[in-house]
């Protein structure tokens, strides 16, 4: 069910655009997806809709633009009020959810970039250690928020699941390409299980790009563009 014309400007590999796709899927919102070709030059529509940052994703709801992925997810939750809530209903739980989403925003993407720019074994080991510092805190947050259920949001995918889970495809790429484990039984057993549950969720498995497709993209596009990595030794 749509409430008026909805469009999403995004790129297929972007975890930030994926957050919005997940939210729209959870709310069963019909929308038109417009793929931006960022390397070909940003579209007029993107530049007009997000003149401040000129970045995707941008949600256009009846021609009114909403920018910044987490702001868009909250907007979707507040407009399409039927269907499961993405944010918790209690103000305190909501503050905690927003806190951890902001933490993910601050720390996770940077950690992942550290992997992509690691050009030797030492740098890779350091990137793993730094990611671990972040994931251990999120493990603890998961235990408190989930209260024994499969997601940060409890029985259903919630705000932090979306914020963090949107990177799950890229976690798999890093694990495959660099032969590392980002989550493990010893330090992050709950997150290890959560990644599997998240990727298997009906709203997610349809729309998350495959690891192979992302890996190809990373190898051919992302890595050359950030002048990274010597080939791993056999």
């Amino acid at each position: 069910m749509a409430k008026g014309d909805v469009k999403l400007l995004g790129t297929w590999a972007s975890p930030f655009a994926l957050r919005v796709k997940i939210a729209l899927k959870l709310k069963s919102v019909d929308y038109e997806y417009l793929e931006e070709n960022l390397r070909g030059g940003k579209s007029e529509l993107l530049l007009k809709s997000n003149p401040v940052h000129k970045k995707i994703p941008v949600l256009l709801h009846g021609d009114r633009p909403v920018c910044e992925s987490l702001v868009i997810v909250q907007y979707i939750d507040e407009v399409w009020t039927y269907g499961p809530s993405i944010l918790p209903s209690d103000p305190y739980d909501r503050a905690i959810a927003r806190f951890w989403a902001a933490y993910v925003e601050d720390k996770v993407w940077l950690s992942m970039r550290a992997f992509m720019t690691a050009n030797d074994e030492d740098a890779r080991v350091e990137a793993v250690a730094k990611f671990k510092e972040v994931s251990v805190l999120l493990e603890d947050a998961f235990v408190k928020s989930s209260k024994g259920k499969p997601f940060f949001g409890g029985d259903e995918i919630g705000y932090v699941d979306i914020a963090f889970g949107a990177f799950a495809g890229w976690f798999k790429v890093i694990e495959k390409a660099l032969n590392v484990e980002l989550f493990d039984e010893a330090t992050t057993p709950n997150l290890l299980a959560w990644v599997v549950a998240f990727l298997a969720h009906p709203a997610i498995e349809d729309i998350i790009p495959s690891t192979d497709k992302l890996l190809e993209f990373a190898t051919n596009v992302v890595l050359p563009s950030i002048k990274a990595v010597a080939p791993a030794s056999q």
Partner: protein
Amino acid sequence: MTKGDVKLLGSWASPYVLRAKFALKLKSVDYEFLEENPGGVKSELLLNSNPVHKRVPVLLHCGKPISESLLIVQYIDEVWTDCPSILSSDPYDRAIDQFWAAYVDEKVYPSMRATLTAEGEEARAEVLTKFKEGLVLLESAFVKCSKGKRFFGGDQIGYVDIALGAFNGWFKVIEKAFNVKLFDEATTPNLLLWVDTFLAHPAINDIMPTTEKLLAFATSIAFPFPAIKAAAAARIS
């Protein structure tokens, strides 16, 4: 009106702490303010309440901690609902509020910090130019959000007013210390007016530290703003 015991951990000069204070004042919430000593040793309470970031402000509501200034403001708005709203009631306007508040944190604070720490006239002039470009964007945001009224929030102080306005004391410090104008009739006429309107608001006026006090703080030994000390020294000599 309290709904249970409220404490705020903060430091008097921090614009982030001011955001929380403004929100509590606007909602007439009684609370206990616990001053953390800036640059000093962090209290047990702070380290226990905000173990992730170990920084102020932290709101403690019935002992439960909420960290991050903008999250605290949103929480206050959502709990104390029998007073004027801080965030807009319409979801689209609320998204715009969130966008500009995030912009303030992403762009305004780093620009401000860069201005305060730039070494030498030339470096400072360059940073100031960038800073003012950001303020021009906020001018245009103000025109759209205020719809001809006095605040970003319209007739009442709103979320973006609090997010940006908390820095007004420090904006005055920059203007005084370096003899510059951050806002002007030519490029930011509405914000020029807004700064004074904001600072004169009864909920703000009582709480905002004076420029003199902030300037003294900035030039004190405890604080790493050598450029301000140099500028202050140059004025005295």
